[in-house]
């Protein structure tokens, strides 16, 4: 798993590459939490374009970050989930909490319009 990270104002973009399972879930959780704190992020965009696999350990990290950013009145979005990854995001109901979007640009455009 490779983690790439970018801040645009109060938006934290996390771009992941690889497989999201038990092995990497803890490191990813710590990494994102530190970045949220450092940046005082109000929007978290998780880019899954290059993630080929997610299991329930990975979903646990995603839902945990959603809860965290929501508690701070922030928002979270998921960008670019591949079909199999999207299937399990839907099966787990995560898509009802965190909007799934095609790409980062789409999200940034949308929440600017929402006035976030």
């Amino acid at each position, binding site marked *: 798993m490779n983690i790439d990270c970018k801040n645009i104002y109060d938006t934290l973009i996390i771009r992941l590459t690889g497989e999201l399972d038990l092995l990497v879930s803890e490191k990813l959780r710590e990494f994102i939490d530190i970045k949220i704190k450092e940046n005082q992020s109000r929007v978290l965009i998780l880019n899954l374009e290059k993630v080929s696999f997610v299991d*329930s350990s990975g979903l646990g990290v995603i839902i945990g970050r959603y809860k965290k950013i929501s508690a701070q009145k922030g928002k979270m979005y998921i960008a670019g989930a591949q079909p199999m990854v999207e299937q399990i995001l839907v099966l787990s109901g995560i898509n009802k909490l965190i909007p799934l979007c095609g790409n980062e640009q789409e999200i940034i455009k949308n929440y600017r319009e929402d006035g976030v």
Partner: protein
Amino acid sequence: MNVKNYVRFEFFSCPENVSFARSSVGAFAAQLSCTLNDIEEIKLVVSEAVSNSIIHGYDNRPNEKIMVTVSIGYDNSLEIAVEDFGKGIEDVEQAMEPAFSSDATRMGMGFTFMKSFMDTVNVISEVDKGTTVRLERRFALASETDA
């Protein structure tokens, strides 16, 4: 099942081995007549069962034994058994309920995924002895999907 081919492997209960286990089963299952998406689903259920053995069965102790047996049947069916010798499950029925987890930080979706992607999920468990999760699925034969 009338077994056409099988493999069995055992490994330590460390998180590094979860991807090894799912990739190996996925590679073996490629002998079936099935789609790439089916292989992805197989990898997911193996990941769930093996992660459960590590996290719950062995409370994350990394040097315990997990055994995986995979069989392919002449009828294009797949059977996967994931076995640990850990703490076992007191109430299997409750454990298999959607969203049930004995760990507050987890989602309790593992068994739900296994049930969604496999035809049968059978759990045999004994407290302080261990747990065997047996997963079965039959894929359509070419002769069944044609016509």
